[in-house]
């Protein structure tokens, strides 16, 4: 009797909680809202002014790949009193890389080269060459970011530079390397993967660390690239490997099957010879999806996918 009474009480509480939740949700749903009359004009003004450069860049075919950082270059000259009383002129560049200010002295040929950290958590080499020409100065800046043999490079191209006042602004673009040219644009960067769910992590005897990551579309933010519209393109399953010998490598795996649920699946990773991997994803019961990542002697990788439903 008391058990029935407790059941009844729990049921009643549950019903009350459900009703309260529905009432609360309904309160938000019923709240009217209309955009202010000036919002359209405000957006149009933003469209016309501050976003025009990026807007134009975004339609450059090469800019289909994400721009990841901005390098501002200001050429400065100054006289320095060198030892021995000989006056020499040293020129340097003030570079603003993703908000980080770096002063780089130029050599006598107007060149400089240095390595810096990037927003994506990697390292980039920046090469600068400043030339004085009869019809004006020319500054070439190249930024190379390399994650590994199959990684990506960053490179500034001349056609995406613009001049803002005295500053030369160069926006580097991501250039896919080797055979990843078609898929790199839809491949998440290391920064974009920071909110991905880690399904498994392993370490090989050779010192390589591997991670199987799932980037849910709802976990993709535009913080890394400032581009929220990329979310649909980069959500998916990723294999991230890292080792001292090649740095970091990010590979996008095929889209998982319909029953895949990152919060419920179990994952088993088997490591074969030559770094080959067998990744088994299963729902704990009837379904299993297997990916074989095979690496041949030329470091080329192929994928084999097998989906199995057990009775």
């Amino acid at each position, binding site marked *: 009797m008391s058990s029935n009474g407790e059941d009844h009480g729990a049921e009643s509480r549950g019903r009350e909680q459900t009703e309260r939740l529905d009432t609360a949700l*309904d309160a938000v*749903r019923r709240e009217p809202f209309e955009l202010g009359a000036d919002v359209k004009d405000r957006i149009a003004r933003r469209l016309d002014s501050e976003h025009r450069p990026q807007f134009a860049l975004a339609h450059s075919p090469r800019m289909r790949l994400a721009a990841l950082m901005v390098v501002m270059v200001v050429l400065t000259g100054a006289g320095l009193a060198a030892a021995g009383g000989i006056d020499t002129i040293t020129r340097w560049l003030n570079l603003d890389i993703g908000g980080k200010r770096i002063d780089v002295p130029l050599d006598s040929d107007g060149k400089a080269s240095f390595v810096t950290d990037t927003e994506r958590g990697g390292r980039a080499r920046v090469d600068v060459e400043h030339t004085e020409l009869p019809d004006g100065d020319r500054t070439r800046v190249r930024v190379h970011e390399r994650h590994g043999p199959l990684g990506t490079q960053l490179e500034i191209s001349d056609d995406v530079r613009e001049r803002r006042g005295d500053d030369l602004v160069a926006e580097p673009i991501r250039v896919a390397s080797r055979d990843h040219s078609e898929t790199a644009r839809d491949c998440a960067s290391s920064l974009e993967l920071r909110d991905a769910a880690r399904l498994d992590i392993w370490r090989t005897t050779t010192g390589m660390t591997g991670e199987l990551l799932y980037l849910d579309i709802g976990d993709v933010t535009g913080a890394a690239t400032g581009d929220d519209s990329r979310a649909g393109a980069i959500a998916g399953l990723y294999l991230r490997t890292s080792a001292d010998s090649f740095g970091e490598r990010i590979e996008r795996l095929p889209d998982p099957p319909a029953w895949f649920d990152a919060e419920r699946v179990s994952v088993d990773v088997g490591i074969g010879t030559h770094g080959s991997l067998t990744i088994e994803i299963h729902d704990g019961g009837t379904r299993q999806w297997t990916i074989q990542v095979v690496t041949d002697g030329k470091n080329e990788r192929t994928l084999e996918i097998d989906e199995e439903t057990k009775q």
Partner: protein
Amino acid sequence: MELHITDARKARSAARTISPAARSGTNPSARAAFAELYQQHAAAIGRYIYHRVGNRELAEDLVGDVFLQALRGLHRYRDRGVPIRAWLLRIASNRVNRWARRERGRALAWLEAGADVVDPRTQPGPVDETEHERERVRKALLTLPPKYQSTIALHYFEGLSVDEIAAACGRRANTIKSHLLRGRQRLRLALENHVSHGRTS
């Protein structure tokens, strides 16, 4: 809120219009394409964002972000059976989720304090019971993982069906069903926690 399949054709048309205009930066057709997109979708996108953030100024700023983002990304829009409004809602969801991540700590503090932590941006004057209830729901929603926030808001605030949310979020319908179920459970717990710890207890 309805999602119109025919919007995809208009989006492609707008993309073709905007692309050369963007290069010149002065072509009035860019404005025309923007005006068309805005006229058709701004009200729905604005309502969705406002229902999630609960602040007019912020909502209007985020609407601007969404449309500018969409205009920049229009060339990437492809007709994969996803209506353009669903695509805009996806961008809006991601934009709001980005904001939501920063707001989570403030929301937790608000809930822990039983709503005694007043956010002057959202509560400039006297707060009535209904407004307090709305704010409580929004704050509780902010404590959930973003994917649940989007799904719940699109379903319960905007009235989208599971299939429409699946299109907007780029997920399968079964995943959306699962997110609705789990999200609702979590939201209920968050609200009940607020009731037991807050001043409404």
